[in-house]
C-alpha cells in the first residue's frame, strides 16, 4: 500500500547534513516592484502579493519607488531598537540556560519587522502581537526591566505571575496580551479595528502571526471579517520559513505565497523583504494610510528567517542545516541597516561597537534591578493567592473558599 502512495508531501529543501537551499524563494531585485497609490483597488495590485517589495539593494543603497526617505536619525533609532532587541534576546537566552528563567523565545533575524512597523505606526494604533514581536515594547518605550520582571514572574511582573515568560502585555502602550494559543489574536485585531471604525476614530489595528500559524482557522476568520467590513487593520504573516521543525511548505507556502491569501478575499496583499528595514517601514506606511483612508485591510507577508531556535526548548540542528541562516539570501536585518547607514556616512563600525557595549551594559544593569524584585526561586515573591484574582472582576464565593483553603495549606507548611 505504502509504495503506491500518490499523496504529495511538501519537500523540505534542506535537512541536517544537506547544503542549505533557498532556490524555492521567489526573489526579485530591490527597487523593481512598483508602488501603487495606497487607495488602489485590491484587484489592481495583485502583483504586490506575489512580488517582493525591497528597498535596500545588494550595495546597501535605498532604491526604487518604495524608498521611504526617512531621516538618518530615524534610521539610527531603528538600528538602536533592533540592536537592543538582539542584545536583550541573547542575554535572556543565556539566563534561561542558567536556570533563572523557565523559558525564552528570541526574535533574532526578524527584528526589522517589529521595529520598522512599530515606528511607522502611530502610538494610538493597537498591536495584537505574537510572541516574537518583543521589539514593539522597546519602540513604544517600555523599560527593559519591565519585560525582565515578566520573564521572572517576580513581584513587578505585569502578568502577576500568571503567564509563561514572553507573554507580556501593556495596556497603556496599546499592546495586547499574548495567548499561548497560536493565531487567536488575528481576528481579535480585526474586531478591534471594526470597533475603531464604528467609533469613528482613525486608529488602526495591527496583528502578527507566523507562517505556521496561518494554518489556523483564526487566520481565515481574520481575513474574512476584515474583507466583509473593510476593517482598518494590518494583518502580518511573518514567514520565517519554519514552524518549530516544520518547513513553511506544510503551511501552504509551497504553491503560493502567504500574501496571496489576501487577493483571494479581495484584500490587498503585499510581500515584502522582512529583513529590509526600509521596505517594511514603507509598506507599513502604505497599509496604514490605506486603512486610515477607509480603503480597508492589508495582508503583509514578511519574508524572513528564524535565525535562532524556536524557543529555549528547541534544538534546530535536529531538523535543518546548521549554517542555513548564513546562506539566507535576504541577509541579516541589523547588518543591512547598519551597512546602509555607514554608506550614508551616518554610522560607523566604532559607533556600532559602542552602541552594542552601551546596550549590553544597560541590559545587564536592568537585569540586576529586575532580580532585586525577585526571581522564580529566590527573593521577594508575589502572593500565590493572586492566582484567585482577575479570574472574574470580583472574586466569587467559590474562589474565596479555595483561596482560604490555600491559605490554610500554606500556613501549615
Amino acid at each position, binding site marked *: 500500500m505504502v509504495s503506491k502512495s500518490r499523496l504529495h508531501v511538501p519537500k523540505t529543501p534542506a535537512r541536517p547534513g544537506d547544503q542549505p537551499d533557498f532556490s524555492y524563494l521567489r526573489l526579485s531585485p530591490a527597487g523593481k516592484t512598483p508602488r501603487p497609490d495606497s487607495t488602489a483597488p485590491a484587484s489592481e495590485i495583485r502583483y504586490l502579493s506575489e512580488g517582493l517589495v525591497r528597498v535596500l539593494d545588494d550595495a546597501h543603497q535605498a532604491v526604487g519607488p518604495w524608498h521611504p526617505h526617512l531621516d538618518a536619525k530615524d534610521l539610527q533609532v531603528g538600528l538602536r531598537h533592533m540592536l537592543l532587541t538582539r542584545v536583550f534576546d541573547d542575554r535572556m537566552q543565556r539566563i534561561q540556560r542558567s536556570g533563572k528563567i523557565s523559558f525564552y523565545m528570541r526574535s533574532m533575524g526578524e527584528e526589522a519587522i517589529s521595529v520598522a512597523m512599530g515606528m511607522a505606526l502611530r502610538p494610538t494604533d493597537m498591536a495584537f502581537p505574537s510572541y516574537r514581536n518583543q521589539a514593539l515594547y522597546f519602540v513604544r518605550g517600555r523599560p527593559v526591566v519591565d519585560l525582565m520582571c515578566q520573564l521572572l514572574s517576580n513581584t513587578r511582573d505585569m502578568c502577576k505571575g500568571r*503567564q509563561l515568560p514572553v507573554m507580556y502585555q501593556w495596556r497603556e502602550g496599546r499592546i495586547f496580551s499574548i495567548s499561548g494559543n497560536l493565531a*487567536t489574536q488575528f481576528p481579535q485585531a480585526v474586531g478591534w479595528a471594526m470597533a475603531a471604525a464604528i467609533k469613528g476614530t482613525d486608529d488602526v489595528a495591527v496583528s502578527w502571526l507566523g507562517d505556521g500559524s496561518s494554518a489556523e482557522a483564526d487566520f481565515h476568520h481574520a481575513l474574512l471579517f476584515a474583507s466583509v467590513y473593510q476593517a482598518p487593520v494590518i494583518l502580518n504573516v511573518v514567514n520565517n520559513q519554519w514552524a518549530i521543525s516544520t518547513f513553511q511548505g506544510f503551511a501552504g507556502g509551497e504553491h503560493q505565497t502567504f500574501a496571496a491569501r489576501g487577493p483571494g478575499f479581495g484584500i490587498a496583499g503585499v510581500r515584502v523583504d522582512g529583513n529590509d528595514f526600509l521596505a517594511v517601514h514603507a509598506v507599513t506606511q502604505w497599509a496604514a494610510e490605506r486603512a486610515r483612508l477607509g480603503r480597508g485591510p492589508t495582508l503583509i507577508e514578511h519574508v524572513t528567517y528564524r535565525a535562532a531556535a524556536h524557543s529555549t526548548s528547541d534544538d534546530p540542528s535536529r531538523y535543518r542545516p546548521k549554517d542555513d541562516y548564513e546562506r539566507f539570501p535576504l541577509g541579516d536585518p541589523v547588518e543591512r541597516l547598519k551597512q546602509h547607514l555607514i554608506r550614508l556616512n551616518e554610522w560607523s563600525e566604532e559607533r556600532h561597537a559602542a552602541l552594542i557595549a552601551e546596550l549590553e551594559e544597560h541590559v545587564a544593569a536592568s537585569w540586576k534591578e529586575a532580580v532585586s524584585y525577585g526571581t522564580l526561586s529566590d527573593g521577594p515573591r508575589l502572593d500565590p493567592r493572586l492566582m484567585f484574582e482577575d479570574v472574574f472582576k470580583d472574586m466569587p464565593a467559590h474562589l474565596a473558599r479555595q483561596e482560604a483553603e490555600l491559605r490554610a495549606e500554606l500556613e501549615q507548611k
Partner: protein
Amino acid sequence: MPQMNMIQALNSAMDVMLGRDPSVVIMGEDVGYFGGVFRCTEGLQRKYGEHRVLDTPIAEGGIVATAIGMAVNGLRPVAEIQFADYIYPAYDQIVSELARIRHRSGGEFSAPVVVRTPCGGGIRGGQTHSQSPEALFAHICGIKVVMPSNPYDAKGLLITAIEDDDPVIFFEPKRIYNGPFDGDPHKPAVPWSTHPKGEVPDGHYTVPIGKAEVARQGSELTIVTYGTMVHVSEAAARGLGLDAEIIDVRTMVPLDTDAICGSVARTGRCVIVHEATRFGGFGAELSATIQEQCFWNLQAPILRVAGWDTPYPHAFEWEYFPGQARVARALKAVMEAA
C-alpha cells in the same frame, strides 16, 4: 404591567441597553435585517442602524473573536450563536481567550462580551438543534454561565449580563420561548401571558447573576433544576402531590451554593433535573457539591434526572426528553428511600 414572551423580553433587554449605552452592539447570523431566526433581535437594526446591529458571516469562531476585539476596544458586544449546537467552532475563542484575558493580562485587559444562544430540545430539531451544552462552559473558569426559565428573569438577567464586566454565556431554552412547557407535548401550548413571570416591565431592571431563585417553596424534598426543566419539575411534583421546594439555579457560574444547599439541608432529600445528557453533565457538579455540604442531612441518595447519554434523536424526542414521568420516578424513589 406589559405581558411578554421570552423572545419579546430578550428583545426588550437589548432594546433598553442599545438605547442606554452607545457601546452596546448586537451581532450574529441573520440578527440584523431579518431580526434573527427566532426573532429575538427583530426591529433592532431598523431602530439602531446597521452599525450597531450587525449581520455577520457564518463563522461562530470569527463572531466571538471579533466580539472580543471589539470589547477590548471599549464596546459591549452581544453576540448571538444561532443554536447552542453551533457554538463549538467558537469554543477555542471562548475557552482560551474570552475566559482568560483578564487573568492572563494581570487585569489590564478584559472583554465584556455576552454570547446569547438558544439551547435545548423538544422542538423536533434532531441532534443538531437540541443540545444543552452548559456543562462544557461551567467547567471553564473565567466565564459566567446563565440560563433563565422565564421572561422576567430572561430580561433582567440579560441586562445584568450586558452590564457585567465579565464575559457571560447566556443560554436561552428555546422550548419555552413562547410559553412555559410542562413536558407534555400533547397538551395545547400555554402562552406566557398566563404565567406570573410573563409580566415584564418595559424599562430597565436587573436580576442578579449568581443568585438562584426558589421557584416554589416546599418542605418534603428539594428539586434543583433550571431552564425548561423548572416547569416540568413543578408539574411532576404537583402530579405526585409532593410539597417540593424547587430551586431554579438560573446561574451555573457563579453557583448559588448557599441557596441550594440551604434548601437541601432543610428537606434532606434532593433530585436534580436537567435536559442535557447525564454523564458529566452539570447535574454532576450540583450533586457533588450538595453531597459534600449536606451529607449529614441527607436522608436518601441524591438522584439525577437528565437526557440520556445519546444524541438527541429526531423520532424519539419524547422518549429522550426527561419528562414528567421520568422526574416523577426519581421523586418517588427519593421520597421512598429510607
